[in-house]
């Protein structure tokens, strides 16, 4: 009896190894995924430009995605500003350049930390919820029911969510930047004594339009990536409750990764033009 189970185990191992060599290392699923995501994006732009425009649903999604994420983004932004300032102080103190702390922290927050942290938090909060919501709608056949009742489900569900993400993430980034700078002000004053007006002057003296605009523009792309990937994963999930969890999980992972990839491309483009 024991021998029989052992041989079964060995057989199953061999079988899985064969499967790995045949399918596991193949890049086909990856390319298929890329192609279907590309088609999904094209479908999105086609539907986004075609009426009817679901304006009320868009506003509702803006409220859920933007307003409801504000507290989370705000707290994170404040902590990031505070921590970055405290961590940077010793290095600057070695060079006797502590007075450069506000300028350095401001540039870091506005250029990089604000947009990326906001986008990653939105990927975690909004991307997962969109993925799970759409996946459960798909699993419970609500999307099919919409089609039957004459509503364009793609326009109503996907376009509104992606657009809401695209417009809300930049606004959340602006708040994260502002609150992050307040955190930096608190951080500067933990060990030093800098008045608010001096801090304000140093921050805006260091910033330029070339710091603000590229960061603001890339946050639109971050938002779109979060919404698009969340919707794509939810809309194309496998049947069954397992698919819902998988969709939510892979939406977060893929959205976070794509944020960093977009960030890398944005930095290259910015440094090429400026």
């Amino acid at each position, binding site marked *: 009896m024991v021998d029989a189970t052992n041989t079964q185990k060995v057989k199953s191992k061999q079988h899985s190894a064969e499967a790995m060599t045949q399918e596991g290392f193949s890049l086909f699923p990856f390319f298929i995924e890329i192609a279907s995501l590309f088609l999904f994006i094209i479908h999105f732009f086609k539907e986004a430009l075609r009426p009817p425009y679901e304006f009320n649903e868009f*506003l509702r999604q803006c409220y859920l995605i933007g*307003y409801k994420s504000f507290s989370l983004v705000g707290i994170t932004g404040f902590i990031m500003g505070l921590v970055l300032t405290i961590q940077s102080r010793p290095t600057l103190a070695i060079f006797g350049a502590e007075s450069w702390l506000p300028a350095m922290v401001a540039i870091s927050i506005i250029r990089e930390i604000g947009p990326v942290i906001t986008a990653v938090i939105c990927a975690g909060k909004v991307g997962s919820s969109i993925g799970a919501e759409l996946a459960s709608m798909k699993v419970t056949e609500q999307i099919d029911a919409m089609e039957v009742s004459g509503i364009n489900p793609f326009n109503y569900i996907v376009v509104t969510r992606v657009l809401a993400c695209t417009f809300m993430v930049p606004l959340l980034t*602006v708040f994260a930047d*502002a609150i992050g700078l307040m955190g930096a002000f608190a951080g500067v004053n933990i060990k030093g004594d800098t008045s608010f007006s001096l801090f304000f002057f140093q921050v*805006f003296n260091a*910033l330029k339009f070339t710091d*603000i605009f590229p960061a603001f523009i890339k946050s639109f792309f971050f938002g779109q990536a979060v919404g698009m990937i969340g919707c794509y994963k939810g809309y194309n999930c496998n049947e069954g409750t397992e698919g819902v969890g998988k969709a939510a999980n892979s939406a977060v992972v893929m959205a976070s990764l794509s944020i960093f990839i977009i960030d890398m491309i944005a930095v290259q483009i910015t440094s090429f033009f400026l």
Partner: protein
Amino acid sequence: MKNDTGNKIKLGIFITAASLLFLLSIYFIGTRQHLFHRTLLVSGIFRDASGLMEGNNVRFLGLNVGVIESISILSDSTVKVDMQLDEGVQKFIKKDAQAIISSEGLMGNKTIRLTPGDTGTVIKDGDVIATVKPADMDMIMSKLNTTATNAAVITNDVAAITHNIRAGKGSVGKLFSDTVFADNLDQTLVNLKYGMKGFSDNMEAAKHSVLLKGAYKRMKKEQRVEKREERKEVKEEKKEEKKEDKK
């Protein structure tokens, strides 16, 4: 339905606040770059831009009054730097003002420093002002190098001298290290002391000798007469003062 309206109001406030923050940040950055002020364009032609960049500050009396608009190469040895100045400082900067490239501390950005100038006429839009060649870091370093070489020669000499002193060479060395020399010096000082005392006694004896007695007496008399005259003068001055007080 009510709840939906409330959410829309919250969303409206959220969007307005974010937009305001963004616009305010643009305004403040623009103000720093003198975008919302009336400006005048002034140029300076330098031999060397010394790492100056577009957007660097222009300072006048230690205040930021403008930014560098553009930098272009005119010929193989001249660079033209266009500066956008705040119109408010136009009346203080004269035609013979000078532009000097300087930097904000050792590690700071480069800036252009303007001197006010002396003539009565003020600068106008499009004027070209005189420039002063900035202190070249390489030149400073080469001068420092010469100074350091000289200092090395001096310290070598000092080291040789102190070495000689420590070895007891020369009179100063002997003074410090040779005990016999020190004893001799001590004895010499003692002898000198006795010698001086003897000389003093001799002089005292000479005062009472027949040959010099008359001369000493004359000297004493003259001294007494001088003292009396001084006293008289003082008394007269006091009397005059009293008279003036009474008047």
